[in-house]
Structure formats: C-alpha cells, structure tokens
C-alpha cells in the first residue's frame, strides 16, 4: 500500500471526509440489504409495463411469423436489425470500461465498471432477442451452430458474415458474463458474511466459497488482467464483425471499408451515453455520489465528445468517398439519405450524434448533471437513428428503381423495440436490488491513495508545497462534500 503514490493535485476518485472501509460496504450494500425505495418501485413498475409490451409483441411475432413486421420485398431488414445493432453497441461500453480502462490503469473505472458490465450483459441479451426474433422459426435457432445433422452432410456457411455474427455475439456474451461474475465473487462474499438465514445460503452458493486469502486475491487479479487483455480485442472484433453484415454485401451505402472502425466508435459512443443515462440516476437514487463523482461524469462526457467526433468524421468521410469513388449508385445512396424521403431520419442522426455532443467541449456543460443526462439520451436516440439510416435508407432504394418502396413499422415493430427497453430496465433494476452496483473491493483499494481524505491527510502532513494547496482547493470546489475551511489551515 505504501508503495502507491499519487499526485495530490489529481482530483480524488472518492469524495467525502471520513469514509471508512466499513462505510463503503454499508453504503454500497444499502440497496441490496434494505427494502427498495419509492423511486425504485416507480421505475420497476414502469419497466415491467414496458417488458409486458415486449413479451406480448414478441409472442405475437413468434405465433404469426415475421410477416407481422413492416418488412417488405425490398426492405428485408429494418427495425429489428436496427434494434439489434443498437443494443449490441450499447453493450460495448461496459467491456470498454472494465477491460480497456483496466489495462491502461485508469482507476476511475473502479466505481463504474460493475454497473457498466451489468449493462453489457443485459444489452446483449436484448440484442440476442432480435436475432432470434428475426429468424422467424426461433425453435430452429440451433441450425446456426455447426452440428452434425440429418439433412445430408450440410454444414453452416462459414463464408457468411452472419455466421461470424453467431460466433462473435455468443463469445462476447459468454466472456462478458464470466468476466462480470468472476469480478462479483468477492462482493457476493461480503453480502454472504453479513446476511442471515436463507439469504446467507443463497449468497453462499453464489460466492463459490470465496474467503479473500492472499493467494486467491493474487490469482484473481491475474485473471482479471488477462481477461481484460483478451476482452479488449474481443470487443473491437465484435462490432467489426457486426459491421461485416453490411460491409461484405454489395449494397450501395453498405459496401464500405470504413464500417468496422466507424461501428466500433459508434458503439463506444452509444455505450458511454447509456452508462451515463443509467448512472446519473443510479448515483442519486442509491446515494452513491461519493463514489460516482463529478470526475467520473466529466470523464465519461469527454469520451462521449471524442467518440462523437470520430463518428462525425466517419459520416463526412462516407460522403466524401461516395463522391470520390465515382460510383453513381453509391453517390445516389448518400444523396438519397440526406435529401430523400428519409431525410428527417438522416438529419435527426446528424443533429443528435454530431452537433449536440459537441456541447461537451464546454466544461460548464460537462459538469452539469441534468444537461449531461439529457445529452446522453439525445446520443442514444441519435445512435438509433444512425442504424436506422444505414439499414433502411440503403435498402429502400437500390439498383432497381421499380422495386423502390417505403418502410413503415407496424405496432409489433414498435412494441418489440419500446418493450425491449422496458425489459432491459427490469433486468437492470433487479440487478441493483440483488448485487452490489459498485465494485466494493476495487473501490476500497482507492481509499488510501486516491480519496479526498487521503489527499487531505497528505496536505496536513505537509507533503504539498503550500503554494500548491490553493490550486488543489480551487480544483475541489465543484464537489459537494468538500468543506473548504478544512483546507485553509494547511
């Protein structure tokens, strides 16, 4: 512990004056060990209502077939694949936060990785429902696996990007789940050792017998690091492969080499926006302001403005390359996007994804919680429109003008999409009730080095040049918990 040293003028990762290890456990486990509050119940009831819409719409689809959707002979992919790519994209931030930031030793991830990973799991589940739904005959989903079969020596088509999808998504889901659950073990053990009766039994089974001995911790950290190391290329590969679904086709507007990096950037963009949407509410409702601080919010906003700009550059590059390629079909596809019948979707996408996130260049907006929340939702909407624009505007008018049509969603399309959001929130809210939403062990690790009180202790002990103390005090002004009079003596 003593070997750790961090600059005092770095912003603290845990705020609050007298936080102890026990307090971290108490505060993080408060929602798990106590009855839920009114805000949770309101959210849960609304989500269950949404989820029942989803259940009804998806059952309707399975019963009557995907003819219930607004698809037609030209637009064979529409809201379903839009929803699928949107949810998979949202999932990506969780792995990014837990894996990439771990490799780069960005300790601010410690407070948010748990809920971000949970979000990944639930978002990928939502994404998977679209894939299964789109199959039409969902009970034959196992045909996508390379199983010996009775239909002659037929095997799956390994040259198809859709087959790559099956492998990418299933690997991504299962590896994310393993990463998430392994990380949960120490915290589940904490719940177990505080619980009684049936709860203790259940958490005891779930904790795998974790004791927290030295060797286990050391192995645990090795496992986390290697998992992070392999998850980082995995997360990049998954959205690259999702983009292959489009890029390997010969459809104007799809057949572009920019798709893999552009999809990955978009995924991180939308994923961070969703983390922001969830955590800004969760920190307030669960009282976790000392752990998910303004520094975390601002850091995530910075990533949103970065990835939003990357996405913006990609949009412009697509346009440029369409013109520069000299392919008239490609050129028409892009002019049609901006000025054709779906112009409103295109310009909604541009406004939500390229223009509004640029507001985050202003620090005042970056550290404004209500504005951050609103902007994060705008990004979510914009990213949905991005996928809609790519899919529907490319398909509805391609090489053959005689088959040009419009796509109109049916109530089933709308019900499945809106309902899937409800389904997602049901899972997320239940997660908040049964498992710790902040990785306690990892946050405890920061208490002695990066917390506000650790830094104050260093100032009091005279480790900081008195001329720099003022800088530090000014930098802390934005934190609610700081009583500045305590610093002036130093």
């Amino acid at each position, binding site marked *: *512990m*003593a*070997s750790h040293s961090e600059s005092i003028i770095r912003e603290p990762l845990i705020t609050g004056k007298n936080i*102890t*290890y*026990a307090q971290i*456990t108490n505060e993080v486990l408060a929602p798990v060990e106590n009855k839920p509050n009114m805000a949770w119940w309101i959210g849960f009831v609304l989500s269950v209502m949404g989820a029942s819409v989803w259940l009804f719409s998806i059952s309707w689809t399975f019963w009557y077939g995907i003819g219930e959707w607004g698809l037609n002979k030209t637009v064979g992919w529409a809201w379903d694949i839009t929803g699928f790519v949107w949810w998979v994209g949202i999932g990506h931030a969780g792995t990014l936060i837990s894996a990439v930031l771990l490799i780069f030793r960005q300790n601010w991830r410690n407070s948010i990785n748990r809920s971000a990973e949970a979000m990944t799991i639930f978002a990928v589940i939502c994404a998977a429902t679209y894939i299964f739904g789109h199959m039409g005959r969902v009970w034959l989903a196992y045909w996508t696996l*390379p199983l010996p079969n009775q239909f002659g*020596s037929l*095997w799956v*088509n*390994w*040259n198809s990007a859709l*087959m*790559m999808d099956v*492998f*990418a998504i299933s*690997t991504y889901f*299962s*590896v994310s789940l*393993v990463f998430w659950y392994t990380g949960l*073990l*120490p915290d589940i*053990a*904490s719940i177990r*050792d*505080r619980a009684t009766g049936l709860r203790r039994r259940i958490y*005891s*089974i*779930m*904790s*795998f*017998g*974790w*004791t*927290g*001995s*030295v*060797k*286990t*911790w*050391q*192995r*645990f*950290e*090795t*496992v986390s690091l*290697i*998992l992070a190391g*392999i998850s980082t*290329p*995995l997360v990049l*590969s998954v959205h690259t492969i999702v983009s*292959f679904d489009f890029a390997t086709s010969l459809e104007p507007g799809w057949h572009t080499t920019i798709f893999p990096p552009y999809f990955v950037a978009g995924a991180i963009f939308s994923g961070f926006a969703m983390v922001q949407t969830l955590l800004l509410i969760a920190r307030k409702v669960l009282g976790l302001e000392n752990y998910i601080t303004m520094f975390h919010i601002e850091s995530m906003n910075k990533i949103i403005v970065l990835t939003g700009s990357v996405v913006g550059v990609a949009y412009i590059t697509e346009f440029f390359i369409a013109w520069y390629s000299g392919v008239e079909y490609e050129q028409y596809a892009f002019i049609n996007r901006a000025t054709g019948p779906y112009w409103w979707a295109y310009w909604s996408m541009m406004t939500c994804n390229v223009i509004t996130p640029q507001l985050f260049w202003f620090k005042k907006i970056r550290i404004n919680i209500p504005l951050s929340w609103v902007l994060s939702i705008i990004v979510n909407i914009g990213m949905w429109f991005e996928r809609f624009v790519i899919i529907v505007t490319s398909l509805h008018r391609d090489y053959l003008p005689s088959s040009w049509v419009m796509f109109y969603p049916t109530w089933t399309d709308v019900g499945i999409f809106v309902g899937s959001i409800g389904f997602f929130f049901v899972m997320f809210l239940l997660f908040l009730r049964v498992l710790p939403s902040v990785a*306690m*062990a*990892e946050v*405890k*690790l920061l208490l*002695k080095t990066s917390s506000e009180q650790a830094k104050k202790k260093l100032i009091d002990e005279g480790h900081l040049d008195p001329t720099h103390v003022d800088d530090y005090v000014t930098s802390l002004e934005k934190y609610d918990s700081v009583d500045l009079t305590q610093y002036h003596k130093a």
Partner: protein
Amino acid sequence: MSSTKFILGCFEDPDQMMDGITKLQKNSIPIYDVYTPMPIHGIEAKLGVKESRLGYAAFCCGCIGATVIFSIVYYTLVHDWPMNIGGKPNFSIPNFVPFTFEWTILFTAFGMVATFFAATHLFPGRAPRVMDLRATDDRFVIAVDAKGNVPHDDITRLLEEAGAVEVKHNKRKYVSYDE
C-alpha cells in the same frame, strides 16, 4: 495444553497489517494465511506467494480453441462438403480468421477461469471457510496457526504492537455458518 487453534490479528488499516506481518516474520513466527476485503499489492512478495502461472494456462487454452475451430471449419468447408459459394475458394483463410479469433478468446477465457477456480478451490456451493466474518468487509486479518507456535501471548503482543484492533484466540478453524 491450550485449546486455541488459530490466533487472528484483526487490523483496521492495511499498512498496519503489513507491519504486523513484518513483526511476525522478524520473530520467525510462520503465518498461516492473510484474509483481506480487497487485494493488497506487494503482499505476495512479502509472504512468498509464488507468481501465478495462470498466464500459461490461458495461452494453452487459447491454442486449443484456435486449433479446434480451425479444424472444424477446415473439415466442414474444405473436406466434408465443399460448397461453391459465389466462386470463392473453399480454403479461404481470411474467412476463417473471425471464427478462429473468437474461439481462441472463448477457450482462453473459460479455460483460464476454470483453472483459477480449480486452483483456488472455488466452485458453486462450496462451504465458505471464513475465519472472521469481517474479513470480507473492513478487517484485514492475519491468521497464525497456534499449534507449535507458543507462547501465544507473544504472538498477541506482537500483533497488538503492530496496531491490531482485536486479537482472537479461536478454538475452531473456521466460522460456523450453522450457528
């Protein structure tokens, strides 16, 4: 003969716990194990815990995954049922890359985590062998095997000198969950 099986030094502060370990080691008192609510960096060198070999396990599992899926794809697409799809060659390695990559990672992750669970004796439903319930909350616990390590008072004194907030003389090895 004392009926104490284990002496536990419970610390509030990880630095003091480290100090406790140093003090015990200087007095040649062997430490059974240390239980903490979070990973303590640098402790494994102090206690002589060997470096993890999980990396090798991960590498081997990854190699197996890559081989398995490449073989499956090769057997099905090139050997067993070569299909003419758009005139593409059957043995088209670039198309094999995504599958090989994904299963390398899948096998690495599952293989390594399974190895980790096996090596540290973790599995669903295993009875937790906890010496002190607060070791997963806010206490940093040094456990000393009492048998053969006498006098116990010296151990207690050393732990208290290091800053232990509580020293327990346990008659049982583990906390019983059934009480």
